């Protein structure tokens, strides 16, 4: 579509990139149909096409973000369903990233929002702080109802609802170390420990490491690695996100220098989408652009990597799995068939719920910051999953696991936990 930027504006490489993205949009409207917030709210302002228009206006006028624009951008889940749907190849992901950074720099949110966001950014990416917060939540949960009634504390009430009832102790099986391949070494990978996942469900990476080493893959858990930066990246806190990215890039490249790396394995697809984007995030940093691109090229979702290992076909085990494809998996990374094929090969019967392209409402911190829309999406998702009458739900992202678990009595596991079980690991807890 038509754009109107001055040469001075276009001298900023970010604006130049966004202008290119906007030029590709032909306003056909296809994206509206598969956007979860448009489907739920029925307002074009809460659709990709509406947001693209709002962002275009904001950037063209070079003005500070305003309340209306922020409201509609905040409602975007960044599920990237539009990216899959868009025939013209509009790179909405990087456009909305730019908008979020612009908002963070130019817009002063009301106190309660600033406070909630600051707390989230200071706690979630740090496992020790997060574990402490969850334990504290365990004590204060009875107060959730009361807390939610205090307007500026509402976000914290939602957090209390989402916090798991029990917090597992830090896992011994995923500590920084090199986990040797069983039998002949076929490959060597690093695995992301990350931030929230090891606190909430350490058994996911335990299963991944067990399965990989069992298949002859040496697995490195690097000391000093941490949050991939996605949580703060989606809040527009660019510096904090880039700092996390640089730290991880350095650590993994060192691991690669030590003894080579075939891949950096990620077991949370939300993180995978971001790590695969490090090359882009750090493109303007001359010291890191090339290094980050290298790490992005190494990044692989666990199922993406396992698909290349040709795991043996297992007998049917008479268990039906509803596979929920996380948005970051299917839209962010375009990994659609590998997880289902792996599950089938491992002997499970796989069902695909209707409206599989719609987000479950988790979306990083979205279920905390936009709890009403998130709740609607969760109900819709659970209804579609339960209609397939599964024994268990499998998915590849910790956010979805936490979100969906609060809406159904069905057990929900990471895909790799089921695969590990099928190939000799223990029966997953909760099955």
């Amino acid at each position: 579509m038509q754009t109107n930027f001055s040469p001075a504006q276009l001298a900023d490489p970010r604006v130049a990139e966004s202008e290119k993205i906007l030029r590709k949009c032909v306003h056909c409207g296809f994206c509206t149909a598969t956007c979860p917030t448009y489907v739920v709210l029925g307002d074009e302002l809460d659709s990709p096409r509406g947001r693209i228009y709002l962002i275009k206006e904001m950037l063209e006028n070079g003005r500070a973000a305003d309340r209306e624009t922020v409201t509609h951008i905040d409602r975007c889940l960044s599920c990237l369903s539009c990216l899959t749907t868009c025939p013209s190849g509009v790179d909405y992901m990087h456009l909305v990233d730019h908008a979020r950074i612009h908002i963070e720099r130019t817009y002063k949110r009301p106190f309660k929002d600033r406070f909630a966001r600051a707390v989230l950014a200071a706690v979630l990416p740090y496992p020790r702080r997060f574990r402490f917060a969850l334990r504290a939540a365990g004590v204060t949960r009875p107060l959730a109802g009361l807390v939610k009634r205090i307007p500026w504390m509402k976000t914290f009430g939602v957090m209390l609802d989402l916090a798991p009832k029990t917090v597992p102790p830090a896992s011994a099986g995923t500590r920084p170390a090199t986990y040797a391949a069983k039998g002949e070494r076929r490959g060597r990978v690093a695995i992301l420990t990350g931030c929230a996942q090891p606190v909430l469900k350490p058994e996911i990476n335990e299963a991944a490491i067990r399965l990989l080493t069992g298949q002859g893959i040496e697995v490195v858990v690097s000391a000093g690695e941490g949050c991939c930066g996605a949580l703060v990246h989606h809040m527009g806190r660019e510096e904090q996100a880039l700092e996390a990215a640089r730290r991880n890039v350095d650590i993994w490249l060192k691991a690669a220098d030590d003894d080579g790396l075939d891949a950096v394995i990620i077991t949370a697809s939300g993180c995978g989408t971001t790590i695969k984007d490090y090359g882009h995030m750090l493109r303007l940093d001359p010291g890191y652009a090339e290094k980050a691109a290298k790490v992005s090229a190494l990044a692989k979702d666990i199922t993406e990597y396992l698909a290349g290992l040709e795991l043996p076909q297992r007998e049917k085990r008479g268990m039906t799995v509803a596979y929920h494809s996380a948005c970051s998996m299917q839209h962010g990374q375009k990994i659609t068939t590998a997880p289902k094929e792996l599950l089938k090969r491992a002997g499970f019967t796989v069902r695909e719920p209707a409206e599989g392209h719609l987000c479950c409402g988790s979306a990083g911190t979205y279920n905390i910051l936009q709890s009403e829309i998130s709740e609607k999406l969760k109900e819709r998702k659970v209804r579609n999953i339960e209609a397939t009458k599964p024994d268990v739900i499998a998915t590849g992202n910790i956010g979805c696991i936490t979100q969906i678990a609060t809406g159904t009595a069905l057990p929900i596991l990471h895909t790799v936990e089921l695969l590990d079980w099928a190939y000799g690991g223990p029966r997953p807890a909760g099955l």
Partner: protein
Amino acid sequence: MPETIGFLKPKQAVLDRRQEIVADLKDLLPKGCLISEERELKPFETDAFLAYRRLPLAVALPETTEQVAAVLKYCSRYGIPVVPRGAGTSLSGGAIPQEDAVVIGLSKMSRILDIDLFNRTATVQAGVTNLNISEAVSGDGFFYAPDPSSQLACTIGGNIGMNSGGAHCLKYGVTTNNLLGVKMVLFDGTVIEVGGKALDAAGYDLLGLVCGSEGQLGIVTEATVRLIAKPEGARPVLFGFASSEAAGACVADVIGAGIIPVAIEFMDKPAIEICEAFAHAGYPLDVEALLIVEVEGSEAEMDTMLQSIIEVARHHGVTTIRECQSALEAALIWKGRKSAFGATGRIADYICMDGTVPLSQLSHVLRKTGEIVAGYGLRVANVFHAGDGNMHPLILYNINDPEDAASAEAAGNDILKLCVDAGGCLTGEHGVGIEKRELMLHQYSRADLDQQMAARAAFDPEWLLNPSKVFPLEGRPAA
């Protein structure tokens, strides 16, 4: 860009009362259903005919027929123009507002109300997407036949407004052939029902008049449509040709021989490349033109029809014939075709023509179209419903370059006139909108148009419903 298509001059009296109108409309609608902040109005200033833009006075997003009626009644009482909007996918500017108009968007009315498989009907709210209807009944072996390429997003209300078609209309007909009834709100707020579940209706065929009236007779809030049982099997087959003329002549001969497959779609080389880049459907890239022919029925029926088509195609020197091998492949072939317009955005801006010609003229019009566009120094990609003779040349240009944009528009006008002169018409399915409004006199005589306008005025004597559309601005009756 210098605008060659005009809009009606906004009524100053309405503009002056803007704040009052907004406040009143807010009272008539639930919270969050009226948009009036300028920044939030911007995204509603255009549709998929995006070279033209007008900021509306306000946007109402009602949730019920009663709310639509309340807003219309208010607007009619105070003489405020109204522009209806479905999903805003119009390629002719049908949903583009004007400064003194209230947009009524049906996007919140997206519920399926009743599925009656016994009587093979579905009753849905106007904001339900075309594809949603088929998806809702697919598990039971049914579908809703008209399938505009934008069916993923476009609404049934918009389909009725434009009498939309689609690839499969060659066999099943367009919207008007599949619509059984509507609930419609007249401009004064009266709610009427036209048609119903039973075939045909006593008295005048008002449904026929409503379908394709581009939102000028009232606002449809519910529709009852015909459901069709899915065929036993369906198979798209790709036919490649060394020239567009050969492909065009082949289509004419297939239809001329009395063979009616479900769909015959045409793509020329530029269109094939564009669609392949998005869908990776495996279209042959070494041909100048491609026909996607879909046959359906039992295996034997499909084979028989296919054999007759192949014979005709051989006669026209077909160079490639590829039968689709799997359901996944078939889905990709259609995904690519149906995303053609949007996918064009990868390489250029475009305007899409919609002229329809008698099949005997197809080859001639294709060739002339290429010459016209080249004459303006522009490129063209052709992707269209060949079996219906419904052509969609996409004129590629750069919207940021005013001269380019003016040339594209001029080329488009020449092509549409060519279609009319070849015995065809201006629009097969996209509607007149603002785009083809001034060309209506090329198609119709004054007397023809006067009669159409008289029918319109019977519903909306003040000419306030979607007023800038369909009829040339000159020569309208004084309201």
